[in-house]
Each structure stands twice: as structure tokens, then as C-alpha cells.
């Protein structure tokens, strides 16, 4: 899994692509943990190129959100409709602010 991290003035963007499932969610979790351990708590997860998200991936985000709030938060950008629908279906949507595009997400901080 290729993970890109981009630092901005008030937040950091993490981006990955393709599938997120049980096989690679731990790696994503480590990437988030690297940020929070450095004191970064304003994080944008850019989901532009994420095509599939299993529950393992959602739990990485939830765990990261628990670490980031209330000092900061994880926001989500550009989620594919199918993934967004499944997120809402399981009642997890309320735990994240979701933006339609990356610029809005970064600008929210």
C-alpha cells in the first residue's frame, strides 16, 4: 500500500489508493499513528482514489479520531458514493466531517 503524506500549514493530508481491507489497514493505521505521535491531530484523509473500504479501514479511522479529538480531528475528503453509503448505513458517518473535495477539507482547518 502506497501512502502519501502532505503537510500543510494547519493540517496534514494522508492519501492512499485502491483497496483498504484487513490485509493493509494496519499499515494505514501505522501511518496515522506516526502523525499523532508527532503531535499532528488535524488530519485530512484524502479518499479520492480509494475504491473499497472494509470495516478494518473504518476502525483505523475511528481509532485515529479518538486520538485526535478534541485537540483536532480527522476529516474525510472525496469519498466514493458506494463507500459513503456503506459508511452511513452502519451509522459511522456522524463521527466524521466529510468534504466533497480536498481543497474544502484542507481549508476547514
Amino acid at each position: 500500500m502506497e501512502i502519501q503524506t502532505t503537510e500543510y500549514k494547519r493540517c496534514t493530508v494522508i492519501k492512499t489508493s485502491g483497496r483498504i481491507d484487513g490485509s493493509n489497514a494496519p499499515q494505514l493505521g501505522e501511518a496515522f499513528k506516526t502523525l499523532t505521535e508527532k503531535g499532528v491531530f488535524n488530519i485530512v484523509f484524502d479518499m479520492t482514489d480509494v475504491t473499497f473500504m472494509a470495516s478494518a479501514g473504518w476502525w483505523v479511522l475511528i481509532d485515529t479520531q479518538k486520538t485526535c479529538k478534541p485537540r483536532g480531528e480527522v476529516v474525510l475528503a472525496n469519498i466514493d458514493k458506494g463507500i459513503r453509503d456503506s459508511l452511513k448505513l452502519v451509522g459511522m458517518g456522524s463521527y466524521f466531517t466529510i468534504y466533497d473535495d480536498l481543497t474544502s477539507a484542507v481549508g476547514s482547518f
Partner: protein
Amino acid sequence: MPTRTYSGHLKHLAAICDFVTEQAALAGLDEAQTYAVQLAVDEAATNIVEHAYGGEGRGSFSITCKVTAEGLKVVLKDGGAPFDPSSVPEPVTGVPLEELKSRGLGVFLIRQMMDEVTYQFGPDGNKLTLFKRK
């Protein structure tokens, strides 16, 4: 009615997804229905790999897809410990963030995504049958 067999490793999840996606297309499922099948089967396969034989790297399981006039049936079989998904309580959501717990989300997704979910345990082990109507 194709059947594929996989060893108990999470690395097979992508190939499993490709398999059911191909069968979903043959069954005439639309994009949303196909995603639902992908997600449910991924969750079910992950549970088998992580729990059926006591951890990843053990055992094997099979996935059979049957295209019907009504939709797509997917049967997952493994020879591991009995696991009845109906015994897993639904995760509690709508609670404060700090109270959210991970247990049960995969099974919950399976139930929400598929139109029918049935489970049997017999001499050959666990048999989980999922059906998605088109």
C-alpha cells in the same frame, strides 16, 4: 457454479473481490449491489481468516458463486471452529466516540449488505450462504 479455494491469508482478499465482482456482473447486479456483495464477502472472508482456525495463516476456505435468475448466491465454507454470525451482537452506534467498540461491525455489514444470510454448521464445518437480489 464456480468454486475457488483459498488458504487462510488476508492477501487473498483482493482476488476474492475480483472473483465475486466477475460473478456479480454475470448475475446482472448493478454497481451498488456489486459493492454490497464485495463488502459482505470481504467481511466474511476476513472473519474466516482471522477466527476460524485461531489466526491467520492456518486452514483454508472455499467460495462458491451461483448466478440465479433472481441474483447472486455466494457460499463460503471453512473447516474451522463453529461460528454462527447471528451470535454476534450488533455494534452499538450513535454513542459518543469514545464508547464505540469495533466488535461486530463486520457481521453487521454482512447482514445489512445482503438480502439473505444463512448459516449452517455440519460435519464439514461452517457454511455461510449469502444472497443478493438484483
